[in-house]
């Protein structure tokens, strides 16, 4: 049934740190690799050695932002790399619109999944998702989305430290964290509390489980410039007005004559 569970025992999800993400796309590659070689239809590429195309469950956008001045002091502009995969929403609109029952949210851990054997590829769930987290695979014709690597996190056949999502395991910057957001004492919940985790598009009412940690403000070693300064002036100023050394002695000697 594509009715949503009223509560889930756990809320497994990701916490993504926009402060540390360096935009390297390693998680994109790891995600595509794991999810092409394991559960379900592979993530196809239409033209693998040509123009970029194909199915991805995780994509990195990059934004530039100019923060508002604080106390009339202009702030530095920032670049933020922005990974985006399914947020495993509590009120997932993608699930309730599904006519076939292929889309569902698990009552035990809150993971939102697609049963590919039941999906008819109508695409309505992708329309219902505000975040662009679902894509119909062009070859298989079924809906693909982030599984929170459900086939890793409970997988007893792999080493214990491997039992986290592929994207989390691979991230060289430690910008992706995995855990139970329903447990207030979990590492991820503490991180969210400490750093002020944010919901994306809260006005859409989806109640995302995944949280984003805001980038910290840029360091300012000196007051940012207003644009009027002459940055060469300090280098062009005469180093000493009075001659020193031999010239200084000569100068003084001649003076005395």
């Amino acid at each position: 049934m594509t009715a949503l569970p009223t509560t889930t025992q756990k809320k497994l999800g990701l916490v993504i740190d926009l402060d540390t993400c360096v935009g390297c796309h390693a998680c994109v590659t790891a995600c595509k690799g794991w999810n092409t070689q394991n559960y379900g239809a592979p993530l196809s590429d239409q033209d693998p050695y040509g123009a970029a195309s194909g199915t991805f469950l995780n994509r990195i956008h990059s934004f530039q932002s100019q923060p508002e001045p604080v106390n009339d002091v202009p702030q530095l502009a920032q670049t933020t790399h922005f990974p985006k995969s399914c947020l495993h929403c509590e009120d997932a609109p993608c699930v309730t619109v599904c006519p076939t029952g292929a889309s569902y949210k698990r009552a035990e851990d809150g993971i939102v999944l697609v049963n590919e054997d039941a999906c008819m590829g109508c695409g309505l769930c992708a329309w219902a998702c505000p975040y662009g987290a679902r894509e119909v695979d062009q070859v298989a014709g079924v809906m693909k989305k982030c599984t929170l690597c459900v086939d890793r996190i409970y997988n007893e056949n792999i080493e214990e430290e491997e039992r986290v999502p592929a994207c989390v395991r691979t991230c060289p910057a430690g910008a992706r964290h995995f855990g139970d957001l329903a447990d207030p004492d979990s590492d991820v919940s503490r991180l969210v509390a400490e750093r002020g985790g944010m919901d994306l598009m809260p006005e859409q009412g989806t109640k995302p489980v995944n949280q984003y940690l805001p980038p910290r403000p840029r360091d300012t070693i000196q007051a940012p410039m207003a644009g009027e300064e002459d940055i060469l002036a300090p280098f062009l100023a005469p180093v000493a007005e009075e001659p020193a050394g031999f010239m200084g002695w000569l100068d003084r000697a001649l003076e005395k004559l």
Partner: protein
Amino acid sequence: MNPAPSVIIFSTLSGAGFGLLFFLGLGLPTVTGFIAFGFYLIAYLLAVGGLLASVFHLKNKKNAWKSYSQWRTSWLSREGWFAVSALLLMAIYAGLQVFLDTTVATIGFLGAALSLCTVFSTGMIYAQLKTIPRWNQPATPAFFVTASLAGGALLSNNPTLANILLILLGIVVGFHWWKGDSRFAEAGSTIGTATQLSGKVSLWEKPHTGENYLTHEMVYQVARKHAVKLRIIAIVLMTVVPVLLVLIFGAHHLPVLLAVVSHLIGLFAQRWLFFAEAEHVVGLYYGAHTAKQAT
């Protein structure tokens, strides 16, 4: 949203077909024998033809039958149920009229109600999507139902009703356009709420250099000047021309046929715009629609 021809054809033709079934079910007109056969043939060709077109839109057609399972939550599933029960019930009603010269009004009324419910569900599939603010308004199911009724009244040769409904359709569609233009700002999603970054935010780099399923399907933008032209074409062909034809010539076959053709072409244009103008909030992650967001 990308205006897919299969979906536009489906919603336009099947809407008119179910509209015709509605009037036949109400006994406006009550027909029997050969004439009834002609009417029902047109109605079923339109309704079923339209439904088949929508199946072409599916990427995995073999699972289409499973879409009957989720009627409790999904409007798409409900649409399927209403459509099949309307078509079956009206087939019994039609069979009795065509072959036995008998009209069982109760079956007809029920069939008419189910036909209308089908079209309403089609409208709700779009209207329920909060992600597409232009569609997420009561005028969406309202114009689907009015269009179906207007087309049905034309096809069933009810000139007065047709004119009233055509004019009503023009008003509802006009309201939908007007309201639709401010829905994105009203919904309140901006590149700021999407990214939660502070200050003035803009896209710096897309995730990939090429297009993807999302940009192809949902980040479709239509030039404003084309939209205005198409709106005029739509309203003229959909409402003005048919109304004038019916007013001048009354219920004669050829002018009514012309009126139907003009009405349907106008509706195609309206449906094309319905998709092409619809802004999906995911576009904000791709740097689109920022001119339309709330400030």
